[in-house]
C-alpha cells in the first residue's frame, strides 16, 4: 500500500554499468606488470596510476580478481602489531579505509567496532602490555583490560575458570574492526579501471624473462608482454612463482587457513574477538553471521579444501569461550592460503637481485589488513626504484643476517628447524 503511493523511479544509474570497464585487449608492452589480481596487486596498480602517473600497467590474474586471499579472509583490520616496524604501516592502512571509500566512491563498509584479543595467562598479559605500549608509543589506541571489563564489552564471553584456557583479560584496540573484503577488491578494481590500468582476468603468467640481470618481460597464457618492471604479489602462490620462474628461494611455507560462518543472527557480538591460545577469532558480519576461524594445518598446502578437524576444533573452542553459540549452527566453511614466514612478517623487496623485479609476499594472514598502505608504498618503490623507508625493514636479507623481525614472541615452527 505504501509502495503504490511512491513515484516509481528507474533503477539508479550506478546499478547498470560494468564496474571495471569492458574487457581490455592484452598489449605487447606495459610500463609495469603486476602478477596477481588480489588486493596488493590492485592497490599497487591503483596508486601507481593515481599517485605516480604510471598508468600503463597490467594486472595479470589467473582466475578472477579477488579469487585468492582477497575474497577468503575474514575482513579483520587492526594496527596493534608487535614491533615498531609494523605498527606504523598498519596504522596507515587503517587510516586509509575512509579515505579510499571516498576516493573510490565505493562503500567499503568499514566497521571500526574494535578488537579484543583475549589473554589467558599472566605471561600473556605481560606480552600484551608490551604490544600495547608499542601501539601507544606510536599513537595507536590500545589498552589492557581485565576479564570483567572484557565481559562488559562482550556479554557472551565466558570468564569462568572451568574452561581449557580461562580468560585473564584482553588487549582492547578500539580503532580496529572489519571491512567488507569483497568491496575493497571491487572498489580498487573500479579505481584502477578509472585510471587506465588494464585488468586481465583468466590470464595466467607462465614465465618472467630477464636479460643481463634486468627484467624484460612476462609470458602469459594470452601472449607475451615486454616490460621493465614486474611485481609478483600473488598471495600464497608468490613464493612458488618466484622460485620456479626466477630461481629465488624464499623462507616461506604456504599453509591452508580456513574460516567459516554461522547462520545469520541478530546482533550479539559487537567486536572482533580473538584468542591465540584457542586459535580462534569471532566477529559478526553485517549480514549477522558469526565469522570464525584461525586454525591452520601446520604443513604446506596449496589446497583450499576444508578439514573436518578444523570445524571440530573451532566448535570446541567456541563452546568454551562463547558458549551461547553452542545453540547456533555452522553454515559454511571455506579455505584459503597463507604464506607464512618464520617471523610472521612479510617480505617486501625489489630492484636488487634483478633490476626491475619486485616482490610483496609472506603476508601470512595479514595481507588484508595491510593492503591499502602497502599498495601506496610499493607503488612508490616501483615508480622510483628506491625502497621507501617504511618498507626497508621488510627486506629478504634479514633471514640470512639472523635478524628476524620479532613480530611474534614465540617461535613460529612449521618445521623443527625454524
Amino acid at each position, binding site marked *: 500500500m505504501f509502495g503504490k503511493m511512491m513515484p516509481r523511479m528507474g533503477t539508479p544509474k550506478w546499478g547498470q554499468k560494468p564496474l571495471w570497464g569492458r574487457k581490455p585487449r592484452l598489449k605487447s608492452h606495459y610500463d609495469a606488470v603486476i602478477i596477481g589480481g588480489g588486493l596488493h596487486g590492485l592497490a599497487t596498480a591503483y596508486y601507481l596510476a593515481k599517485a605516480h602517473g604510471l598508468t600503463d600497467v597490467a594486472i595479470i590474474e589467473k582466475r578472477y580478481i579477488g579469487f585468492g586471499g582477497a575474497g577468503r579472509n575474514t575482513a579483520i583490520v587492526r594496527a596493534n602489531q608487535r614491533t615498531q616496524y609494523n605498527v606504523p604501516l598498519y596504522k596507515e592502512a587503517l587510516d586509509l579505509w575512509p579515505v579510499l571509500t571516498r576516493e573510490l566512491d565505493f562503500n567499503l563498509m568499514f566497521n571500526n567496532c574494535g578488537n579484543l584479543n583475549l589473554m589467558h595467562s599472566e605471561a600473556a598479559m605481560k606480552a600484551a602490555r608490551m604490544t600495547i605500549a608499542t601501539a601507544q608509543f606510536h599513537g595507536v589506541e590500545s*589498552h589492557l583490560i581485565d576479564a570483567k571489563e572484557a565481559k562488559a564489552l562482550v556479554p557472551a564471553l565466558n570468564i569462568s575458570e572451568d574452561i*581449557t584456557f580461562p580468560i585473564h583479560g584482553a588487549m582492547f584496540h578500539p580503532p580496529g574492526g572489519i571491512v567488507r573484503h569483497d568491496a575493497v577488491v571491487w572498489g580498487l578494481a573500479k579505481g584502477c579501471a578509472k585510471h587506465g590500468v588494464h585488468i586481465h582476468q583468466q590470464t595466467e603468467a607462465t614465465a618472467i624473462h630477464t636479460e643481463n640481470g634486468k627484467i624484460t618481460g612476462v609470458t602469459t597464457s594470452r601472449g607475451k608482454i615486454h616490460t621493465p618492471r614486474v611485481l609478483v604479489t600473488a598471495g600464497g602462490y608468490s613464493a612458488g612463482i618466484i622460485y620456479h620462474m626466477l630461481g629465488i628461494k624464499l623462507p616461506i611455507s604456504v599453509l591452508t587457513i580456513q574460516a567459516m560462518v554461522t547462520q545469520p543472527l541478530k546482533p*550479539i557480538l559487537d567486536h572482533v574477538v580473538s584468542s591465540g591460545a584457542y586459535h580462534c577469532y569471532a566477529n559478526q558480519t*553485517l549480514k549477522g553471521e558469526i565469522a570464525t576461524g584461525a586454525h591452520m594445518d601446520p604443513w604446506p598446502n596449496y589446497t583450499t579444501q*576444508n578439514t573436518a578437524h578444523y570445524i571440530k576444533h573451532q566448535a570446541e573452542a567456541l563452546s568454551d569461550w562463547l558458549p551461547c553459540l553452542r545453540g547456533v549452527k555452522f553454515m559454511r566453511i571455506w579455505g584459503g592460503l597463507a604464506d607464512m614466514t618464520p617471523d610472521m612478517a612479510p617480505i617486501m623487496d625489489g630492484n636488487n637481485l634483478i633490476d626491475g623485479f619486485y616482490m610483496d609476499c609472506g603476508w601470512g594472514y595479514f595481507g588484508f589488513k595491510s593492503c591499502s598502505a602497502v599498495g601506496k608504498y610499493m607503488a612508490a618503490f616501483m615508480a622510483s626504484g628506491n625502497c621507501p623507508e617504511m618498507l626497508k625493514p621488510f627486506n629478504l636479507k634479514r633471514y640470512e643476517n639472523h635478524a628476524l623481525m620479532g613480530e611474534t614472541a614465540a617461535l613460529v615452527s612449521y618445521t623443527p628447524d625454524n
Partner: protein
Amino acid sequence: MNRLNQLPTLRIDPAEKRTLSYRGKSLPGVAGDTVATALFANGVRIFARSLKYHRPRGLYSLDGECANTMMDVDSIPNVRTENTLLKNGMVVKEQNVKGSAEFDWMGFIDKFDWMMPAGFYYHTMHKPAAVWPHAMKQIRKAAGLGEISPDYVMRGRFDELFLKADVTVVGGGAAGMRAALAAAEGGLRVVLLEARPHLGGCFDYRVSDNGDGTPLYQRARELAEQVAATTNIRVFTHAPLVGTYSNNLITAHQVGSDSDSFTERYIEIRSESIVVATGCIERPLLFDNNERPGVMQVGCAHRLARTYGILPGKQAVFAVGHDLGLEAAIDLFDLGLKIGCVADIREDGQNPDLLMALADRAIPVLKGWVAAKAHGKTVTKVTLTTVEGTVKRDFDCDLLVASAGLTPVTGPFIMAQAKMGYDNHTGYFLPTELPERMFPAGRLTGVGDPRAIEASGRLAGLQAAAACGVSLNGELDAAKAATAALPGPERGCKLVTAPVKGRKSFICFDEDATIKSVKQAIDKGFDVPELVKRFAGVGLGPGQGGIPGHNLPLFVAKYTASSATPKPTTLRPPLVPTFIATYAGAHHHMFKRTPLHKSQKAAGGVFRNIGVWKRARYFSDDFDCREEILNVRGNVGMLDGSTLGKFRIHGPDALKALQRVYVSDMSKVKEGRIKYSAMCNDDGCVIDDGVVVKRGENDYYFTTSTGRAGATVEWIRYHTRFDGWDFHLVNLTDAMGVINLSGPNARKVLAKVTDADLSSEAFPFSGYREITVGGSIPARAMRLGFVGELSYELHVAASYMQAVWDLLEEAGAEFGIRNFGVEAQNVLRMEKCHIILGQESEQRTNLLDVGLGFLWDRTKSACKTVGAVALRQAEKDPNRFKLVGIRMEDDDRPARDGALIVDTKVRGYVATMRKSFTTGEAVGMALVEKPLSDIGTRLEIFEDECNGVRLYARVVKMPFYDPNGERMKA
C-alpha cells in the same frame, strides 16, 4: 484438521499425542510430526518472513533446503522446523518479524525492491561519511534472522563417534539399502547413513508399484528389515552427512531419539570406500511469486499427505516438469485433493500410463505450460502460461505444486573434490570423474525406474566391496548386466524460468535474490556464478544453496549467452547446518596433573595452565607472594617441580646425540656432577636449558624446561635423522616427580629424612647423588641454585612423590617449611638473574644475547652442533639485543613487565621487574640494544597508559642478590 490416519505409509503415530506452544496457544501434534507439519496441520501457512524484503514464506520442500520454515524453538534460533521432530512442550516462535509472520509491519519493504538492485550497499550510505555509522547500525538490526541470548545455555548431551568402515553408504533409500546389503554379503564392515528418521527414501511414501506388484513403500520396508537383520551393517538414521573429505573421510551428525543417550552426536567415519545414494531434491520452478506460502514442491505435497497424513490443500494446481509430479497429482487426487489443472512444462516424454491415469480422473493436463505468477499473500490464484508466454489462463487454488525438475544431491562428490560437469541428457551436474573408491547409486545417476534404482544400488555396493579387495568373481558383471537391462537415466526438463521479467521471481529465497538482481550483477561484470553469488547474494543463506544451486549456473549460462556448458557453483561443508554443540561433541578437556596435585590444591594452591600441565602458581591471594618469597630466603620452602622434562638417553652413540643438540662440550659431563647447558635452534636462538648427569657409560639423565618436554625426543631425532646413530631415548617426565627444597634450612630438613651425607664436602653445589629417603625410597638429588639459596632438587618416582613430600613437610615443620609456587620462584630467580626462556628471551634472542655465551664450546665444529653456525655469524653483529640488569631510579615504582625502553624509537623492553622484598630495590632484567647495555646507562622507560610520563632506570650489575653465590653454594 483431520488427519488421514489410516494410510499404510504413515510415519506418524496418530494415537500418541504431542503439544507445542505457538503464539501463546497450545497446539496439538502427534508422535512423528516435525514441528512444521504439526503447525501446518493446525492451519499455519506463513511460518516466517524473508531476510531482506520480509515476504511471507511457507512450507516449500519439507527437507530444509531453505530458511522458509526456520523458527525459534525453545530459544534456539534458526531451527529448521520441517526437519525437527516435535517434542512435547516445545515453544515455537517466529523470527525476524515486527508483529507476526502473518502480519509483519516490515512487509512494506517488499515494495521498495526497485531501490535495492544487486550491490545496493556498495554504492550507498557512504556520502557523507558521517552517515555510514548510523546506517550500519540499522543494517545490523535489520540483518540476521534468529536471535540468541548472550547467556543462553545449550541443554542436552552431545557426544561423538569415530568409526572405521569398509563401505559407507550415504542415503538409506532403496538404492542405498541395496548397496549396503550387497556390500555386506562378503562380511565387510558396512555403515549406512540416512538423513531422515527412517529408511526408505523416495520409496517410503509412494504407492505405485515397483514392477512386480509390490507398492514401493512396502518394498522399502522389506529392504529395511533385511538391513536390520544384517549384523555387519550399522545403521544411523536421522543422521545427515555433513562433509566428505579426501582419503574417504566422512562426517555426519545424528539427532538422538528419546531412547538414545545423546541429544545429538558428531560422527566421523574413515571408510575404505563410499557409495553415494543421496537421491534427488527438486529444482525450483522460477516464476513470479514462486515462493509464496501455498507454493510447494512435489515431494513436499506428497509426503505431507502420505507420511504425515495431512492433505496439503483443498484446491490445487500443478506446474511440474517430471513424472513424479504427475504421480503425486494422481495419488493426491485419490486421497481427496481437488486438482484444477496439471501444467506439464514438457511437450512430450511423459509416462503414458500416468497420462492415462490423469485422464481417467478427468484432471486436465496442459503440456508445454508453466506457472507464470502466483497471486495472494498465501496462494489464492495462479496464472499459467504457455512456455513461450503467448497464452495465459488463471486458476483459483490454495495450493500450487511447482517443480521444474530434479536435481541430484551431489554434495558428497563436490566436497570430495570431484570434477563436475553438465550432463545434457539429464540436465544434471554430475561428476565427470569419480573420486577414488566413491560410487554413485540410485536416482542421483538419473534413473527413475524403481527396479533400476535398486539394481544400481546393488551394483554400487558390489563395486565398493570390490574396491575393498573383496573378490566377487562373476557377481559384479552380473550386476552390471542387470543394471544395463533396465531403463537408464531419464531425459530431464531444462527450463529455468517461466517467461517473466523476474522482478519477483526468486532464484534464492534466503537472500531474496531475484532473476532481476542476478541480471544486474552480470551486467556489472560479475559474469561467473561464483561472483554472482557474492555480489548479488545467491546461495549464501541458511539454506546453503539448496534452492539456487542448480538454477543459478543454468541461468547465468543462458543470460551471458555463453557457448561453454554451465559450470556448477561449489558447495562447502557442512552440507546441513550443524550445531556448534554437536561439532564440539564430548569435548573432553585433557590436561596433566602432577603427582602432588591434590595436596597442592588442599594447601591453597591457585592453579594455572603451564603448557599441558596444571601448576600451582600462588599459595595465597597475595599474588606478589611476599610470604612465600621471604620464607625461602630466610627459612625453607618446597616447590612442586614435577612438570620439568626428564629423559634418559642411552646407547653407544648417546654422547654424539647430546653433542649435536647441546651447545656445550658434553664429553665433559662427569659422573656425580650436574652440567647445566642449553639447546639452540639453527638460528642460534635458545630454545631450552637444563641439566645433564651421567649415570653410567653411554647412559645420561637430563632435564628440559616444562614447555619443551613434549618436543625433545622429536627434536633430538630430527637433528640426527641422517646419521644412523645407535642411541635411545626414554621420556621419564611423568615417571619422576620433582621437589625443589630451597632455603638456608634445606639441608637440616633433608637430613632428617635421609642417611646420606649432605655436607658441602660430600655433596657440594652442582653435585648429583642418588640417595634414599624415608628408609627405602630412591631419589635422585641435585644441588642447584635456581632461586639462589641452598637447594636440593629431588627426583622421585611419581607414585612415591606424595609420601616423600609428606616426609619433608613433617621434617620441616619445626622450621616453618611452606609451599612456594611458580610466581614466587619467578621472583626469586629474577633476583639472581637466572633467566626463564620465553620470559627473558623471544624467538629472535640468541644464546649470546641472554649472556649464556659461556656455555658454548666453539671447538666442537665436527659435532655440527645445532645453532653454532648462526652464533658464529651473529657474534660480531653490533645491532643485537643484550640482556641487562636494571634498577629503577625510584625504587618504589618498578616498571611493569613488558614496558618499553625508548628514545625516539623503541630500543628494548623490560622482561621481568619487581620491587624485591629481599633487597628493597626495584630491579629487573631488560633486553636492550647493545649500545645501551653498558653499566650505568640511563634508560628511558615507556609504559602503557603512561600518558607521556616516562620512568627512568639504570643498567646495573647482575645479579641483584648474593652476587658471589655464597648462599646457594653453602
